[in-house]
C-alpha cells in the first residue's frame, strides 16, 4: 500500500508511472523507485525461496547488504531489489534457490 498523504512529509514528487511484470502479472510502479518498494506496494512480499529449505524471503535490510531480497530481473538472477531501480517493462521473477545462469546484460 502506498502512503498517498503524509502528515509531515511533503507530497511525493510526481514520478513517471510505468508497468513492470512480476511473475507474469502487471504491476504499476514508479520509475526509479527500488523494485522492492514497488512490489511491497502491490502486496507482494515473497521475493524468493531459499535453496536448501525452500523458505520464503522478502525485504530485510533495505540497504543492499543482506541480499535477502534478491530476485531474477530481466533474466538475471540474484539482483538486489532493494537498491535496484525500476525501469519500465522490467520482467521480475520470484527466484528459486540461486536462480538460473544467464549472461548479464544489465548494469548496476
Amino acid at each position, binding site marked *: 500500500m502506498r502512503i498517498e498523504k503524509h502528515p509531515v512529509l511533503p507530497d511525493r514528487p510526481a514520478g513517471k508511472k510505468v508497468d513492470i511484470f512480476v511473475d507474469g502479472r502487471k504491476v504499476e510502479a514508479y520509475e526509479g523507485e527500488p523494485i522492492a518498494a514497488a512490489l511491497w506496494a502491490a502486496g507482494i512480499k515473497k521475493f524468493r525461496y531459499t535453496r536448501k529449505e525452500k523458505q520464503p524471503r522478502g525485504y530485510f535490510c533495505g540497504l543492499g547488504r543482506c541480499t535477502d531480497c*534478491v530476485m531474477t530481473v530481466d533474466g538475471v538472477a540474484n539482483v538486489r531489489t532493494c537498491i535496484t531501480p525500476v525501469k519500465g517493462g522490467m520482467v521480475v521473477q520470484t527466484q528459486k534457490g540461486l536462480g538460473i*545462469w544467464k549472461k548479464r546484460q544489465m*548494469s548496476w
Partner: protein
Amino acid sequence: MDSRVTKLPSESEVIVIGGGIFGCSIAYHLAKKGKETILLEKRNICSGASGRNGGQVIQLEGREKEPANIKKRLALTRENNIILKTLSRELKIDLEYRRTGSLDIAFTKEEWKELEYVVKIQEKAGDREIALLTKEETLRLCPLLTQEIKGARYRPSDGTINPFFYTRGLAENFVKHKGEIFTWTEVKKILRKNGKVCGIETTTGQRIRAEKVVNVTNAWSSFLIPEIDILPLRQTAVVTEPAAPLPVCPVEAFIKGEAIYANIQSERGNLIAGGLDSFRLSRQRQYEERIFLEEVRGNAKIFSCLYPSLKDLSIIRAWAGTMALGPDFAPVVGKVPESEGLYMAAGFYNGMAYAAIVGELMSEMIISDRTPSLLECFDPAKYYRRKFVWPKTYNCTSLAEFFARK
C-alpha cells in the same frame, strides 16, 4: 571451548596444537580410537589457512614432473578421496563434497607443450584418470572460460569441499568422542627433557603435561620446532556475490605469469578465486592477513580474464592467508627426531586432498609408534637441523623460480 572461562587440564595423553583442518582431523581420529586428547588453538577453529582457501580438492597440484613425488602423493590422495566419499555420513554433516573435476589451463603454446609433457609423465607414474583436453573439449566442459585458452589438463575425480564444514565437522565429532578443545590458547613452547617430550607451556604460563605432542600449526610450525624449517607463504583470495549455479570446476592456471590457484563456486553461489600474490614480502610479513588494494584488483582482473562473462559480478570480500611449504615443496609428516613423542604435519600445499587420510595415519602412528608406509617418504628426519637459504623476500611466483633454479 573458551579457555578464558574453562580451566586447562594439567595433563593429557596427547596434546594436538593447532585447530586447522589437520589438527582437527588428527585429534578426531585419536579420540575415536580412545586416546585421551586435547586440542589447543591460538585463535579459533579454522581461522588460519584452513578457513582461507578455496576448498578445492586437487589431488596432484601444480605441474609436478618428478615421478617419485607423483607416486607418493597420489597414493595418499587416492586413499583420501575414498574416505571423503563417506565422511559426510560419518561426521553427520554435509561437507558439500562434490566431484566436479579440475582443470589446469594452458594459455600459450609453450604451456600447452608443458602440459602435454606433464600429463605424459603423470600417466606413466600411475595417474590413470588424467586427460588432456583440447580447447573445444575444455570449452564444452566449462563454456564460461575465455576463448583464449589453448587446452587443459583434466582430472575427473578432483572436486570441492566446504572447508569450514569439514573442519567444524571434525572438531564437533572430536568433542563427541570426549575430546576437549581450548581456543584462544596459544602455546609458547613444547617442553622437552632428555630427548623426550613432556608437555607444553602456554603464553599465559600454564603448563600441561603430556608424553605425546602433535604440532599441526603449519606455517607457524617452526616457531615451536625450530629444527625443521617450514616456509610460510602468503596467498590472497576474493569471493564474489552469489551467482546462479555455473558450469565451473576448480581451475589452475597461470595467466600472464601470475598464478591463480583455483576458482570454485560455493553451494551458496559465491565464486571464490585467488592465488595471486603481487608483492614479494619478507618471511615475517608472509603472516600478514590484511590484503592490499592492488591484490584485490589483481585478483579481480585475472578472474575476469579467465571468465570474461562474469566480470560484472561484484567482489564482496577479500582476504589473505598463510599456508606453508616444506623445504622441497613437499609435505613434512611424522616423528620429529631426537624428541620422543613429538610429531608434526605441515607443508600441504593443498590440504583438503590430504587431511582425512593424514589424520587417520597420524593417529595410528601416534598410538602404535610405527610409521605407516604411506607416510615414510614425508619423514621429517630428512630436513632435521638442515639450514636452508631462502630468498629474503618472496612470493609464490618468485619462489617457484627459486626452486626451479635450485
